[in-house]
C-alpha cells in the first residue's frame, strides 16, 4: 500500500489524559463516566469564555480479545490508530462465560494536539467481562458506541466464524476484521470465512489483515502489466509460482488468496489441484482463451518472515509469439525490500529494487479502513482461494 497511509506519531508532551478504573462495575456507570470524562477534556482545552472544543470522531473500533498479551498489543495499536483515525475504541476481554457475572472496566481519554494544532481525541474503554453477559456481546458494546460513525469489529485470534454469536456480533458493526495469518487451523477457518462472507448482509464488510499484507504484491503486478504494450501478456499468463514462509503445509492462506485473486480476476477456470509433500500445491486451470495455466506454491523455510508471508512470486507469459517473465523476491538481507526482475520479449532483463514487505498491524488496519466497507475483489479472491485449497486437499 502507498506509504502516505503510515501513522503519524503523537508527541507525549502534547497529550492530556484522564483515566478511570473500576472493578465489579455496571455498564450504566461506565457509560456515564465516559460521557463525563469526554466533556471534561473538551472543556479543559477551551478558554474561560470559549465554547468547549469539539473533537472529531470518525469511527468506533471494537476489538474482541481473549488473552493478556493480545489485549495489551491491541490496546497499543488502537491508541496508535487514533493518531490517524480520531476514534473511540472498545476492547472487550472475554474471560470465561462459566464464571460468575462480573465487569471490570478501565477508561482512558487522551486529548492530543498535533504539531499543526489539530485537536484529536481518543477514548479507549477496556472491559474485562466474565459470566453470561459474554453471550450477549451486543448489550455490552452498543451503549458505548459513538453514534452515526462506522463501527469496525476486530476479532483477534481465531474467531468462531460458524457460531451464532458471530452473527449477533456482526449486527453491531459495519465491518468485521480478522487476521487469517493467526487462524489456528488456517484451512478450516478460511473455508468458514468464505462461507460467512457469502451468508452475511451485503451491507457488512469482511476484511482480512492477511489480504492487506499481499496488497503490495498485487499493486506491483498490476503496475507491471499496466503499459498497453504488456497488456497482451496478462492474458497470456501460463505459469504462476508463489513461495511462502513456513515448513510443510504451514499457513497457505496468503498464497491461496494471491492465486485466487489472479484466477478470479483473469477468469481462469479450475480444472484440478493436488497437494504434495513439503507444502507444495499444484493447480491446473484454464484461461478464457483456452490455454492451460499452472499455478504452484510451496513453503520455504525463512528465518525472518512470519509464517505464511509471501516471499516470492514468478509469472511467465506468452503473447504474440513473444515471452515475458516477471519475478519479485523479498530480499532477506534488507528488510522491507524486494528485487523485481523482468524480461519482455527480446529486451534485456531489467532489475529494480522495490519497497515491499511486512507492515505493522496498525498500518494494515488503516489500509483496510481506508479501503472502505466491502471489498468485492477480496470476496471473490477468498472464494477462489477456498475452492483451490479445497480441491488440492
Amino acid at each position, binding site marked *: *500500500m*502507498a*506509504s*502516505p*497511509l*503510515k501513522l*503519524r506519531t503523537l508527541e507525549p508532551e502534547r497529550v492530556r489524559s484522564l483515566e478511570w478504573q473500576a472493578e465489579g462495575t455496571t455498564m450504566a456507570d461506565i457509560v456515564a463516566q465516559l460521557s463525563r470524562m469526554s466533556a471534561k477534556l473538551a472543556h479543559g482545552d477551551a478558554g474561560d469564555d470559549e*465554547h468547549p472544543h*469539539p*473533537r*472529531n470522531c470518525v469511527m468506533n473500533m471494537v476489538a474482541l480479545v481473549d488473552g493478556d498479551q493480545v489485549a495489551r498489543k491491541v490496546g497499543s495499536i488502537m491508541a496508535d490508530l487514533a*493518531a*490517524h*483515525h*480520531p476514534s473511540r475504541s472498545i476492547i472487550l476481554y472475554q474471560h470465561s462465560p462459566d464464571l460468575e457475572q462480573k465487569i471490570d472496566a478501565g477508561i482512558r481519554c487522551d486529548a492530543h494536539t*498535533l504539531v*499543526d*494544532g*489539530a*485537536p*484529536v481525541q481518543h477514548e479507549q474503554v477496556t472491559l474485562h467481562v466474565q459470566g453470561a453477559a459474554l453471550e450477549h456481546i451486543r448489550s455490552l458494546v452498543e451503549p458505548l458506541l459513538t453514534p452515526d460513525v462506522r463501527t469496525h469489529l476486530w476479532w483477534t485470534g481465531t474467531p468462531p466464524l460458524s457460531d451464532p454469536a458471530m452473527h449477533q456480533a456482526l449486527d453491531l458493526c459495519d465491518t468485521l476484521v480478522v487476521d487469517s495469518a493467526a487462524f489456528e487451523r488456517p484451512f478450516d477457518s478460511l473455508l468458514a470465512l468464505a462461507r460467512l462472507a457469502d451468508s452475511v448482509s451485503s451491507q457488512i464488510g469482511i476484511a482480512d489483515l492477511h489480504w492487506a499484507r499481499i*496488497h*503490495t504484491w*498485487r*499493486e*506491483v*503486478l*498490476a*503496475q*507491471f*502489466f*499496466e*503499459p*498497453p*504494450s504488456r*497488456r*497482451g501478456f*496478462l492474458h497470456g499468463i501460463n505459469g504462476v509460482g508463489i513461495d511462502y514462509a513456513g515448513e510443510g503445509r504451514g499457513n497457505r492462506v496468503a498464497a491461496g488468496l494471491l492465486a485466487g485473486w489472479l484466477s478470479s*480476476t*483473469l477468469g481462469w477456470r479450475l480444472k484440478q489441484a493436488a497437494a504434495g509433500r513439503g507444502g507444495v500445491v499444484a493447480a491446473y486451470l484454464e484461461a478464457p482463451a483456452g490455454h492451460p495455466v499452472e499455478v504452484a506454491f510451496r513453503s520455504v523455510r525463512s528465518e525472518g518472515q512470519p509464517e505464511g508471508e509471501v516471499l516470492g512470486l514468478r509469472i511467465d507469459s506468452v503473447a504474440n509469439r513473444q515471452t515475458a517473465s516477471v519475478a519479485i523476491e523479498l530480499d532477506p538481507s*534488507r528488510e*522491507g*525490500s524486494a528485487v*523485481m526482475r*523482468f524480461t*519482455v520479449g527480446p*529486451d534485456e532483463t*531489467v532489475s*529494480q*529494487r*522495490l*519497497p*515491499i514487505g511486512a507492515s505493522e498491524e496498525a498500518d494494515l488496519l488503516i*489500509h483496510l479502513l*481506508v*479501503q472502505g466497507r466491502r*471489498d*468485492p*475483489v*477480496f470476496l471473490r479472491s477468498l472464494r477462489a482461494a477456498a475452492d483451490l485449497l479445497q480441491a488440492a486437499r
Partner: protein
Amino acid sequence: MTEAATAPNPLAEGLHEYRTASPAVMVIFGATGDLSNRKLLPSLYNLAKQRLLPPGFALVGAAIDDLSADEFRKRTSASVRDHSRTQPVDDGVLESFLSSVDYLPIDFSKPEGFQALKQRLDALDHERGAGGNALYYCATPPTTYATIAQGLAAAGMARRDDQGRRRIVVEKPFGTDLKSATELNLVLQRTFGEDAIFRIDHYLGKETVQNILAFRFANAIFEPIWSSHYVDSVQITVAEELGVEHRAAYYEKAGALRDIVQNHALQLLTLVAMEPPVAFDAVAVRDEKVKVLRSVRPFHEDEVARATVRGQYAEGWVLGEQVAGYRQEPGVAADSQTETFAALRLRVDNWRWAHTPFYLRTGKRLPKRVTEIRVQFKRPPHLTFGREATRDLEPNAITLRIQPEEGISLRFGAKVPTAGIRIRSVNMDFLYMSSFLLDAPDAYERLIMDALLGDPTLFTRADEVETAWRLIDPIETAWRQGKPPVQTYAAGTWGPEAADKLLEGEDREWHRP
C-alpha cells in the same frame, strides 16, 4: 492497438489509490536549480517510495553545470535527505531511485546539446524498456521554455502527432502578458501539441484546493445556496508574511498582479465560481473554469482606478521582527513602482453570480501566511428577534481555508445562554487534518504523477492562460500609467487603506483571516 491493450487493467481493480504510468524517461531541464533541489527530486523520491514510479522509469538531469552523473546523484541524494517530506529517508529506496538517475551537461542555446541528449535518451529507452515515452520538465527560467521546446523538436525529440508519448511540463508564469503567452503557446503547440503540454500551477496540486471541488460537488446541501440569491460576496485572500526574499530580479518585473493574481487567485476564483462539471476529467473541469474566466467582466481603463488597489510595503513589523520596506530590499530599485499588494473587485457576469462581487487580494509582508476563500451570505430578510438581540450577529459565512490550517468554517448565529434572547455569531470548524490524519502528498508529487500519466485535469490549458491574461492586461496597462497610484502600507498590516475603502464603499469589509 488490440482491445486488450486499451481495456482497463483488470489487476488494478480494488487497489486503493492505484495510479501507475507507462515506463518513461524523465528529463529535468535546470536540474541543478532551486526548484529541482527543493521540490522535484524529493517528490520523485517520494513517488518511488510509494512505488508510484513505473517499472523502467529513468531520470536524466540536464543543466548548464558541468557535473558527472555521480556528482549529480550525490546532489540528488542530499536534496532528498534535506527536503523529503517523509523522514527518515529510506536508504534502500533512495539507492534504487539513484540507480535510475543520470546527468548530462547541456547548453540550451546549442543544437548539439539536444543531439547529445537524444543519444542518451535513446540508449536509456532501450535499456529500461521505456517504449519511447518521455517527460521533459522545464525547471528553468520562463524565457527558456520556447528555446527548449524548439531544441527538442529540432533534435526529433518532440512531435505534435506522437499521441502524447512525449510531454513537456512548464512552470508558471506562462508569459508576461497576453501577447507573450500567446506566442509561447504557439511555440509549444507547434512542437508538442496541446495534449502534451502540462502547464503547472502548483496550487492546483494541493489537496485542499481540490477539496474545494469535493466540498461543492460531493455535497448536496451547499450547491442550492451557492449563488447570488444567497451569497452577498466572495473574498479570496492569498497573503504571505515573507517579503521579496531573493527574487527581486523576477519580482520587479512581475509584481503581485502577475505573480499571484493572474494564476493562483484566478484559479481559486474559477473553482469557487464554476458550474458543476459533468465529470472530474480534463475536458469537463477545464471547460467550466474557462467559462468562469470568460464571464468575468473585463476592465475598462477608467474603471481600473475605481475597482483595483495596488500597494507596496514599507518598513514595519512582521511576526515580531522589524523588516525593511520593499524599496530597501536588495535588487529593488529605489523608485520602484512595482506592486507588492493587489486588490481587485471583480464581477462575474453569469446567471449564477450576477450582482455578487468577488474581491481578490494578495500581498507580501502581510501579517501572516494565509490563503482562504470566504463566502459571505446575505442577512436574513427579517429580524425575528429584533435589532437589539441580534446586535452582535454577523451574516452567515463559509470560509474555505487553503493554508496553513486547512479546513472549513461555518459561521452562524446561536443564542447566548442568558435569561433573555441575545444572538451571537459562533463558528463551527472543520479542520482537515483532525479528520484525515494523513501526511498529504506534496502538490508536486501529485502533479508529476499526473504528467507521467498524461492526465492534464489539474494543469492549465492554453485558452485558460490566455483568457486570464485578457483580464489582467488592461489592469496592468492602467497601472503602468499610474492609475491608481501605488500606495504604501506598513509591513505587517493588511495592505493600504484604499483596499479597505474598496469594500467600505459597498458597505462591506475585509474579513480578518
